[in-house]
């Protein structure tokens, strides 16, 4: 029988469908709760998959992870509480739209473009996985060093109102990332003898503090006044979505391609993809001045990017068993238990199974649309509650979320410190998003710099020694020259 038909037969039964829907609902719940991540949602499923058939087991994990990543956008837009660093790139933009009364529009865009992005990544996975995985395998530390530096360059665009203050924010993030034991030398840095600080600063409580807690402080200081504008209702969602796809098709395609490319690399993930896409969107936009004021363009591009990168992270995972992120790491374990050992042979000897897995990916992304829409409709009611009731409860959620990230009160301390820090940063017009990028990229940058230096005994040539590294390095240097020249010309013009 044709393997594709056989695959459909494996998938098409009620048991599989019910499993997928329950996993999707579970993923939505976990993802929407700040502090709990898609990784945790997937890990919680592991003991359950043990008692399932292979196809529903893998399907449940795929669906759950995709839903959780999208659901991270919901508290991010409504409460300014990003669920994952992948949402942090456009949290401020989305929250600005909520304040303008367009919560439904922005979340509708998130669900639509997340689903399309996921489908795009899946298409790449289906048609090009083996070839692309070969490229991913060629990346070593010099290549990743350039990638990280490229990501950092993007931070300069994100805080574009004042590049200097953007740089300060980025430096704060980079500094925070050096705290703890997690560095190439394996020595404690800035821990001052504390055991808890050896683990460094976890970005989840830090993110909750910087974004959400600082907002709670501000609102409580103002006596929790009602929202400035009433939330507008979106009428016919399909007409609305059609309009968005037509208006923003360029952004969407660009976000998808960029996200897929970054996602394939095992050392870079959805978070980097979202930041880079947001920056690219702003740089290439005809109306860059609208960015940051509640403008959909950048959100479309980066939400497309983070979901497509999530799907394409499976490329090295399925072809070589190399996890692209922690979620794929968990699923690889489950694949082994179910006898679906990842590797090129999975594509040769088990085509109906791999096709069934692909069909799961497609179903997961399609399910996202109705379920996601339902979740948005439910979550939006939050905004109807008076802010005097909402804010203290949000603070309670922040506390529990920060605690849950590593099950310790230390997380709450981190959250509080960063809440105060975020409050002061915003008082002084220092943007927050670059700081999160610094926390995420700092370790990647340092690790790859130091390991490259160890490999070559400290010779800088190593960064241009290999073909891909040389190409990336030259590209980045040209980019810097172009950016500096542009800034110089603008300065001369004024």
């Amino acid at each position: 029988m044709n393997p594709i038909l056989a695959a459909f037969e494996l998938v098409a039964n009620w048991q599989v469908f019910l499993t997928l829907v329950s996993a999707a609902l579970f993923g939505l719940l976990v993802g929407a709760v700040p502090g709990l991540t898609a990784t945790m949602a997937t890990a919680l499923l592991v003991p359950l998959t043990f008692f399932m058939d292979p196809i529903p087991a893998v399907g449940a994990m795929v669906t759950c992870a995709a839903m959780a990543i999208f659901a991270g956008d919901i508290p991010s837009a409504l409460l300014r509480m990003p669920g994952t660093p992948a949402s942090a790139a456009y949290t401020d933009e989305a929250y600005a739209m909520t304040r303008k009364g367009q919560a439904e529009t922005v979340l509708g865009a998130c669900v639509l473009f997340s689903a399309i992005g996921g489908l795009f990544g899946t298409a790449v996975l289906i048609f090009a996985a083996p070839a692309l995985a070969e490229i991913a395998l060629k990346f070593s530390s010099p290549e990743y060093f350039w990638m990280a530096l490229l990501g950092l360059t993007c931070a300069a665009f994100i805080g574009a109102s004042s590049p200097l203050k953007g740089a300060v924010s980025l430096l704060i993030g980079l500094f925070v990332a050096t705290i703890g034991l997690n560095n190439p030398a394996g020595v404690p840095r800035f821990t001052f003898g504390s055991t808890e600080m050896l683990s460094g600063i976890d970005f989840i409580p830090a993110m909750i503090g910087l974004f959400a807690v600082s907002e709670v402080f501000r609102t409580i200081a103002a006596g929790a006044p009602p929202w400035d504008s009433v939330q507008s209702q979106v009428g016919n969602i399909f007409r609305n979505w059609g309009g968005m796809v037509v208006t923003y098709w360029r952004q969407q395609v660009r976000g998808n391609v960029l996200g897929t490319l970054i996602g394939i690399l095992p050392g870079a993930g959805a978070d980097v993809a979202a930041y880079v896409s947001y920056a690219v969107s702003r740089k290439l936009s005809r109306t860059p001045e609208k960015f940051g004021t509640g403008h959909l363009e950048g959100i479309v591009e980066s939400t497309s990017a983070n979901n497509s990168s999530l799907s394409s992270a499976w490329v090295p995972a399925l072809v070589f068993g190399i996890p692209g992120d922690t979620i794929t790491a968990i699923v690889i374990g489950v694949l082994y238990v179910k006898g679906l050992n990842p590797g090129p042979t999975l594509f040769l000897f088990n085509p109906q199974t791999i096709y069934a897995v692909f069909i799961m990916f497609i179903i997961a992304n399609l399910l996202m649309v109705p379920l996601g829409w339902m979740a948005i409709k439910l979550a939006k009611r939050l905004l109807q509650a008076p802010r005097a009731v909402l804010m203290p409860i949000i603070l309670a959620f922040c506390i529990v979320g920060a605690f849950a990230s590593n099950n310790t009160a230390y997380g709450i301390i981190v959250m509080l410190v960063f809440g105060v820090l975020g409050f002061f940063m915003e008082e002084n017009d220092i943007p927050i998003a670059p700081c999160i990028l610094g926390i995420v990229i700092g370790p990647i940058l340092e690790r790859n710099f130091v390991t490259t230096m160890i490999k070559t005994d400290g010779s800088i040539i190593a960064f241009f020694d290999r073909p891909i590294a040389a190409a990336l390095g030259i590209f980045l240097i040209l980019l810097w020259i172009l950016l500096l020249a542009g800034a110089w010309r603008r300065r001369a013009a004024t």
Partner: protein
Amino acid sequence: MRFSDTMLGVLLLVFGLAVGFYAQTFPAIPGQKFGAAVFPTTIAVGFALCGLVMLIRGLRSAGAPLIMRTEWTRKPGAMIAVLITILCVVAYILLSRPVGFIPVTTLILIVLFRLLRLPWWQTILYAVAAALIIDFVFRSILLVPLPLGIMPRLPW
């Protein structure tokens, strides 16, 4: 609370110098040129440079007060409200383990709701309901080990 460029510049410069000097105490990786100190030192230099630029900018446009009170701080009670919120979180950190999640959360919520002038009946109702619902969702569905303290485990 807003710092002038001069003030912010000095702060960053001092912080950069402190980080930079402290980083020099980190041990090297045996046999390697680049160790634990490289990255923090680079960051420290970055901080110091940003601080310097800001300081120069601040001195050029002299006249701004070092610390300015932004609009909201002039509102009576605003600063105290922020302080009370911070103290609530501190209270949670200190008390949740011995006393338990539900009582401490209820207490904090009561304080904050009253701070925002919610009527008493709403305050009590929302605080108790929110604490119980959060406890149910996190402890029972998401398996987060919230501290029990003196509370017995609730029947869920």
